[in-house]
């Protein structure tokens, strides 16, 4: 795959139109994991738009993103930064050729206090 194709691929995977971003930073303004992310939510959008995907594919932020979707919820332009994060993440996971988490690996009794959303995020993050 050429670089252009990979960029296109990421855009398609994310399903979001990065050109709609008006660069207001509200996503990063709301991100609860902001500090832990080496690349910030708004940068995901802007870097994908600019085609800087190598950095994205090597970043740690994809593992730190909580997939809480706050950025998606807050975006005034209907862009979904978390979907870009997700797209990058799945690309990386697929390249590694393995599934991080299998359903049967989850302890049979899940602590009731674990937020449901976390479980969903975990699936989303590790199980491809």
């Amino acid at each position, binding site marked *: 795959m050429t670089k252009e194709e990979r960029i296109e691929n990421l855009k398609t995977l994310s399903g979001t139109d990065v050109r709609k971003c008006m*660069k*207001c930073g*509200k996503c990063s*303004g709301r991100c609860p994991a902001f500090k832990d992310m080496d690349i910030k939510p708004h940068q995901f959008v802007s870097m994908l738009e600019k085609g800087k995907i190598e950095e994205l594919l090597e970043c740690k932020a994809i593992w730190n993103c909580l997939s809480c979707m706050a950025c998606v919820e807050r975006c005034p*332009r*209907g862009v979904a930064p978390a979907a870009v994060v997700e797209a990058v993440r799945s690309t990386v996971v697929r390249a590694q050729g393995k599934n991080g988490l299998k359903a049967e690996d989850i302890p049979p009794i899940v602590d009731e206090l674990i937020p449901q959303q976390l479980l969903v995020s975990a699936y989303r993050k590790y199980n491809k």
Partner: protein
Amino acid sequence: MQRIGVFICWCGSNISATVDVVKVAEVIKNEPGVVYSANYQYMCSENGQQLIKQAIKEHNLTGVVIGSCSPRMHEATFRKAAEEAGLNPYMVEVANIREHCSWIHKDMDEATEKALILVRTAIAKVKLNAPLTAGESPVIKRALVIGGGIAGIQAALDIADAGFEVDIVEKNATIGGRMAQLDKTFPTLDCSACILTPKMVDCAQHEKIDILSYSEVEEVKGFVGNFSVKIRRKARYVDETKCTGCKVCMDKCPSKKGLNTFNMGLNTRPAIHIPFAQAIPNVAVIDPEQCIKLKTGKCGICQKFCGVGAIDYEQKDSFIERQYGAIVVATGFKPIELDAFNEYGYNDNKDVITSLELERLMNAAGPTNGVLLRPSDGEHPKVITFIQCVGSRDTSGCGKPYCSKICCMYTAKHAMLIREKYPDTEVHVFYIDVRTPGKNYDEFFRRAVEQYGVDYIKGMVGKVYNENGKLMVQGSNLIDNEQVTIESDLVVLAAAIEPEPSVRKVATLLTASIDTNNFLTESHAKLRPVESPTAGVYLAGVCQGPKDIPETVSQASACAAKVIGLLVKDKLKTNPCVATPDESMCNGCSQCANVCAYGAITYVDKEFRLGGGKTEIRRVASVNPAVCQGCGACTVTCPSGAMDLKGFSSKQIMSEVEAICKK
């Protein structure tokens, strides 16, 4: 035999870049009926028009087709040119080969082919055109202004100064509108009341102006030059002619807990009240929802204390009907509701306020007498954070897709005023972009930053939350690529503005078109920005689109100029493209009148010859050409096809269909 001239415009390169205009002009020469065909760089130019006029004369043209931009753009221009050359203006048809062709198609062959089809279609139509002559209708020399804000006031004053009667219909108890609520105005920082109230007084004192406050437009009939408007004068329970505005009633009224809407609900007012000190008319009004007498029948204190006997609990809504030649719509705006933006905590925290509320908090006549105190505890806020673009430029569905235009400037104004009055206050502004197009605007904004040290943060706020009695404003600082949290005492939201909701009703009554954001549509974005597509209706202020005071005032004056231009005429030419029945085929079935929105159709008994010396009297439709607007609803309802529309006759459209379908 028809002698048709075809003129293909290059529109510089706008058309010629994608349409082979020379080829089109060449090929069209061979069309039956075409005796002349030419192409030229700019048909609408003086030279282009000259070309058309010359050809009409030299070739004895009976019809003209112009392949150019949209007929909405220059149809009138070309018709006028034809008329000057002695051809009936309605023998001109425009083929839209720019907006509908060259601008949207990239392939030259394809676009040229389509241009040919469009021109042939126009030829097919023009062959069936008939010369039309405009009728005349008288002009009533009186204008109606709907809305008594700065736009309405300015328009009314200008029209009245030209010597025409003007009525201002204002739904609130006083004129003044939003501007009356403002403290200072940018970029000069002069006091809003100081510049507005004299104008309000001018209105009240102008012999040509009649202020109908606390009134609403109920019904509009007629057409340009001849509107008949029914106005509802809402019951204010106070006789306007008697009340002296002494305010004794306000002191005595026992029901004092009504939210003061003029102060954006930041304090309370009595059930009987005058909205603010400089109200025009300076007459009290009773809020029937709040008045004990009106709700329970017991009380009547204000009546007892009114020295002039102005209180009338029995007052009912009344109606007046007046005739106008022109109508100005100046219904203004309101800030949007912020329920959809719970991330800013507006509904949960008293100290998260809107900019308009801040205006009142800073206004000497406001609830705090001009001292900036936060609503929750009346303390001086030490850290104030402004958030811009709240609900503006929002395509997510929660807010408005457009830029509200005034927020950047008033936020800079607020920040500056606060820093000046309370230098120990820290002021932060979260912004996406700072937009300052306007004379002295950017200088103004820079002063806020450079002289007053307002902290502008490029980035948007993600969340405002309460922690230990402080408002935590968490947002991005994009320049430094960090997330910041500012501990604030007061948060001010620059809420998007939207047209006053009542504009929908007004638009419907006036049959003026409205866009998806409820802004009234102007006739042309650039060339006819103050006219509504409905003839005789003009637009001033924010009802047409977001704008600040100077722009609003300019637009209002422009409106006034248009209205004056209309009212000085004694007669108006009417649209000749009206419905017309073929009486020999009309059944008099009344279906057409049932669908006519203008009441333009009536029925008459007419005698017809049957042959053999016999006659019969038959009921047939008759159209008033001054009232008919030419929509054509009747033509489709008519089963026999007796009703037809001049300029858009069935035969014309049919032959257009035939030509346009031809591949």
